[in-house]
C-alpha cells in the first residue's frame, strides 16, 4: 500500500492573488454551475416530470376536452392549442428555477460556494442557464405529442425551431422574476405558492386556449394586453403561417423589459446574501 503524502503548500507570499473576478472567470464559473445543475438533474430524474409528463398529459387532456367545443374537432383545434399549451407549460416550468434556488441557498454546500474564490454570481447565473435545458425538453415534448396527434405545423421545421427558441428565451426572461422570489423568500414552498398565484391567472386569462372574442369585454381587454397572449400569437404566426408578426417584436421587447427590471433586482438581493 502506498501512503500518499500531502502535497507541499505554497506559501501566500508566493501566490498570485487578486481581489476581483474577471469576465472570463464569471463565464467559466457560470458554465460549471450550470453543469452542476445538469448533473443533479441526471441524478434525480424525477425532477423532470414537470417537463416530460406534464406536456403529454395536458396536451392530450385539453385537446380531447376542448377540441370539439372550440374548433369542431380535435384536428382543427391542434394549431390553436399546441402553441398555447407550449407557452403555458414552458413558462410554468420556469417557476422551478426560483424554488430550487431557494432550496440550494438553504443548504450547506451554498456556504462552501461562498467561501470559494469564484464569481459571486455563478450559482445564480449557472442555475438560470441550466434551466434552459428544461425548457428545451418541455418544448420538444409538446411539439412531439402534437405531431403524434396529427399536428403538422404549416410553417415548417425551421419556423418550429425559431418558435421554440422564442419560447425558451421568454421563459428564461420570466425565470428572473421567480429567481427574485427565490432569493428573497424564506422557504421554497412559499416561492412555489407566490409564483403559481401569479402564473395561473396570467397563463389562463389569455388567448392560449380560447379565441379572445368569446370572452366578456373586460376580460378580452386584459387578455389582449396580456404578454402571454402576444407570445402565443407570435408562436402561432411562426409555426402555422411561417410569418413574423408584430407580436414577436412586442414579446421580445416585453422579455427584455422583464430582464432589465428583474435581473438587477435579483442580482442585488442575491449579492446581499451571497
Amino acid at each position, binding site marked *: 500500500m502506498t501512503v500518499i503524502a500531502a502535497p507541499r503548500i505554497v506559501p501566500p507570499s508566493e501566490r498570485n492573488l487578486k481581489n476581483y*473576478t474577471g469576465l472570463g472567470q464569471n463565464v467559466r464559473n457560470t458554465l*460549471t454551475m450550470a*453543469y*452542476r445543475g445538469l448533473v443533479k438533474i441526471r441524478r434525480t430524474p424525477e425532477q423532470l416530470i414537470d417537463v416530460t409528463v406534464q406536456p403529454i398529459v395536458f396536451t392530450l387532456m385539453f385537446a380531447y376536452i376542448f377540441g370539439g367545443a372550440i374548433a369542431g374537432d380535435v384536428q382543427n383545434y391542434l394549431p390553436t392549442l399546441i402553441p398555447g399549451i407550449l407557452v403555458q407549460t414552458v413558462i410554468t416550468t420556469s417557476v422551478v428555477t426560483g424554488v430550487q434556488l431557494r432550496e440550494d441557498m438553504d443548504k450547506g454546500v451554498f456556504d*462552501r460556494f461562498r467561501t470559494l474564490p469564484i464569481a459571486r454570481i455563478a450559482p445564480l447565473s449557472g442555475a438560470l442557464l441550466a434551466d434552459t435545458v428544461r425548457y428545451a425538453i418541455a418544448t420538444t415534448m409538446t411539439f412531439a405529442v402534437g405531431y403524434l396527434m396529427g399536428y403538422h405545423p404549416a410553417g415548417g421545421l425551421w419556423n418550429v425551431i425559431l418558435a421554440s427558441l422564442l419560447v425558451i428565451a421568454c421563459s428564461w426572461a420570466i425565470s428572473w422574476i421567480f429567481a427574485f422570489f427565490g432569493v428573497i423568500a424564506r422557504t421554497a414552498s412559499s416561492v412555489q405558492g407566490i409564483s403559481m398565484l401569479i402564473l395561473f391567472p396570467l397563463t389562463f386569462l389569455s388567448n392560449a386556449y380560447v379565441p379572445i372574442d368569446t370572452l366578456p369585454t373586460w376580460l378580452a381587454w386584459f387578455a389582449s394586453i396580456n404578454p402571454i397572449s402576444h407570445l402565443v400569437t407570435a408562436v402561432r404566426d411562426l409555426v402555422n403561417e411561417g410569418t413574423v408578426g408584430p407580436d414577436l417584436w412586442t414579446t421580445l421587447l416585453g422579455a427584455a423589459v422583464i430582464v432589465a427590471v428583474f435581473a438587477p433586482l435579483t442580482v442585488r438581493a442575491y449579492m446581499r446574501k451571497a
Partner: protein
Amino acid sequence: MGPMTTTPTDWAVEAEGLVKTFGTNRAVDGVDLRVKSGTVYGVLGPNGAGKTTTINMLATLLRPDGGTGRIFGHDVVREPQIVRQLIGVTGQFASVDETLSATENLIIFGRLLGLSRIEAKAKSVELLERFSLTEAAKRPLKKFSGGMRRRLDLAASLIAQPPLIFLDEPTTGLDPRTRGEMWDTIRDLVASGSTVLLTTQYLDEADQLADRIAVIDRGRVVAEGTPDELKTSVGSSSLQLRVMDPRDTDATMEAIERILGVHGTLSPEASRITAPMAEPDRVTDLLLALRQSGIGLDEISVQKPTLDEVFLTLTGHDAADQNQPEAQNAEGEKEEVLA
C-alpha cells in the same frame, strides 16, 4: 526558513476586537485571536459560545459588526476574494452536494477553482485516495457514514491546497476510532505546511492537536495559551480516593494536607475525597503514609480536568449549552447556569 524578523504575514490569522450581534444577542463580543503560520490553533468553548460565528467572520461568510480580521495580512472585509484564495473551510454541517457522488462533488469544486477537466479529475482521484474514500467514490452521499462525509468535506476544502484551513468542530458526533483518524489527518495537514484553526467542545481534542488554545465564553476570549499553560492555570489532574472505613476520613484529609500540601474536598456522599494533584510524584508518598497508618482504600483514580472544570475555574460558571438562555440574559455577567 523565513526572515528573522516577524513580518505581518507570519500571522495566518489576526483578529482584533471582532464583534457580531444578532438582535440583542452579542454572539461575538470583542474576540482577539492571533494564529501563527504553520501551527494548529484551537478555539475551545461550549455550544453557542461564539466559535462558529467567529470562524464565519474570518472566512468571509459573515460581515463583522465591529473589529477587524486579517488572513495572512489581507483584510476579510476589504479583500474578501483574496482571503478566499487562501482559506479552506470545513463547516459543522455537510457542505457538499447530497445528490451528487463524491467524485462529482470534487470535480465540480475543482472546476470552480480553475482546474481543467483533466486536472480536476486527477485531483479528485488523489484526494479520494488520500482520504480512503476511493471505494465509495461513486456512491450517492446519502449512503455515507458520518466519518466518511466529514472526510469528504475536508477533502473538498483541500482542492486548492489553501495555506489556512478552518475546521469547525471536525469531530463532533464521530465515534472514537473515526475521531482518532481525523486527528491523524489534521496532523498530516500541518506537516505539509498548512495552518489549521479548529474549534472544539473537547478539551482533550484541543490538548491533542493544538499548539495554542483560546477558551471562548459568551463571545469573549477568557483565556489563551499553550495547552500546558491552560491546564496549569486550571490546576492539573485531581486525585480521587475512597477510604474503606469512613472513620478514617479525617486522618486521610490530614495526610493529604501534610504530604500534598493541598486541601482535599469531600464529595456530597461523604465517601470520596478529591484533591488537586500538582506533582504526581508525591502521590506515592501519600499512599505509603496511608498504608503505614493502616488506612485501607476502596478506590483510587486520577481525574483529568474536564472542559467543565476549565470553565468553572476560568469563568465561574459551568460550560452548559449557551445557545438559548443567553439571548435573554446576555447582560448578566456571572449568572450561574445550572444544567
